[in-house]
């Protein structure tokens, strides 16, 4: 079993197609929609947590790509502006996944973007607004 969080970019022509449902029916994958938007450019954007057998997972991704959906790993979604971050640590107890952690030695705050589920809770609570949402 694998479980990964991915960002799907749907071109305008695909926005109203039932593509994601096929992942369940034909590839036996389970999904959780973490976020869904239609951008001002009318591109569809969806953040999914996709779970299933590795083989099915890979086939599902191939299927999405064959339809014209662009796929991006989620870690690129919320990024930290390292210049703005002051390493205060007030984001640490807010992050639900432990993606923001204080290094006990340096007292700097590490951002493990592979753990980030892009819930964006830290984005507005960061006093210097160092956590940025990028699409």
């Amino acid at each position, binding site marked *: 079993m694998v479980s990964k969080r991915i960002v799907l970019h749907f071109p305008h022509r695909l926005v109203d197609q039932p593509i994601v449902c096929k992942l369940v029916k034909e590839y036996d994958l389970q999904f959780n929609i973490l976020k869904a938007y239609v951008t001002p450019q009318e591109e569809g954007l969806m953040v999914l947590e996709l779970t299933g057998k590795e083989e099915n997972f890979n086939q599902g991704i191939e299927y999405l790509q064959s339809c014209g959906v662009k796929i991006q790993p989620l870690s690129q979604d919320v990024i930290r502006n390292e210049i703005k971050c002051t390493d205060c640590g*007030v984001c640490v107890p807010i992050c639900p996944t432990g993606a923001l952690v204080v290094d006990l030695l*340096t007292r700097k705050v590490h951002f493990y973007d592979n753990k980030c589920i892009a819930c964006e809770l830290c984005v507005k609570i960061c006093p210097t*607004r160092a956590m940025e949402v990028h699409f």
Partner: protein
Amino acid sequence: MRTIKEINAKIKKGEVVVVTAEEIIDLVKKKGAKKAAQEVDVVTTGTFGPMCSSGTFFNIGHSKPRIKLGGGSCKLNDVPAYCGFAAVDIYLGATAIPDDDPRNKVFPGEFKYGGGHVIQEIVAGRDVRLEATAYGTDCYPRKKLETYINMKDLNEAVLFNIRNCYQNYNVAVNLSDKIIYTYMGALKPKLGNANYCSAGQLSPLLKDPYYKTIGIGTKIFLGGGIGFVAWQGTQHNPTVKRKDNGVPQAPAGTIAVIGDLKQMKPEWLVGTSMLGYGVTLTVGIGVPIPILDEEVVKYAAIRDEEIYTQIVDYSQAYPQMIPGSLGEVNYSQLKSGKIIVQGKEVSTGNLSSYSKAREIAEELKSWIKKGDFLLTEPVAALPGAESGYTFKPLKERPIV
């Protein structure tokens, strides 16, 4: 044992021994206070946290024809500044926000831009838009002024913060069942997190708990430049309860600080937005502690585990001015990332950057070692623990 004069002589000769407020802890542990006091001349402290009672004075120079801003109004990048002085002096406060900021109308307000951010932009050397109106007089006929200003062209740019550098601070929690947004950050319901705001064992006034060396006139690291302690800060409260080691167990002393903004740096004066609360300025301050004798070094070697503070509920107790504490914790516990409040394990977050505080203490240490920074004798003491000086609440009286 030694005087500030003697320390300065050593600084000039390049023979001074300086360690940070962290390093002195190990040194005293290893060698004892007596030996450490003999060896070390100066201990450097540091802190880098949001400090709302901060702001800057600017003298913008006279326009042609002249304008008198005093009694008029003025804005810098749409942020209202105070100009109730003579013709062209302005004070911009850290928490000021543009008139059209939605504030908390859409809750929680984001407070994306305000005085703190303008100050950071000015320090960074960026042009800032000034818009002012005045009523006009015979000697100052002009009624409107719109121009860019830049720090390099200003006559004076002075950071003057009336309260900074709190000696200890509360730990904020939320006992209610909904999230609250405070100056101590977002507090999740039912003890969802506990936020604190102090550099603990690096924090200036915690390392000189009785203000034996820090006083009015003390030269300091301020915002990356040089500043001075100008006065006791507002709400200075030296008479709170203290532990046996002299460390206050609640917010206590404060200092007012002043310095030339033109030498300061944008990385040490950072515009800050507290969700649902407002805008402020995060200020970097470092204070040198001259090791005059063994007693001073003992205080300077106080550790996180010896510094206690109070846990306060910010859903009810704080806003309603209900005294009381949910318990006492030390900074070593806070820094471990988890504390126990009412039997529950609660994750902690710091608003004050410890790693930056460390950088400030190191920076000040290197200035002193290089001979760039001499110490000053205080010209007057801060009101002390026995002074009777207290922080009083407002007594409201009906207007008749």
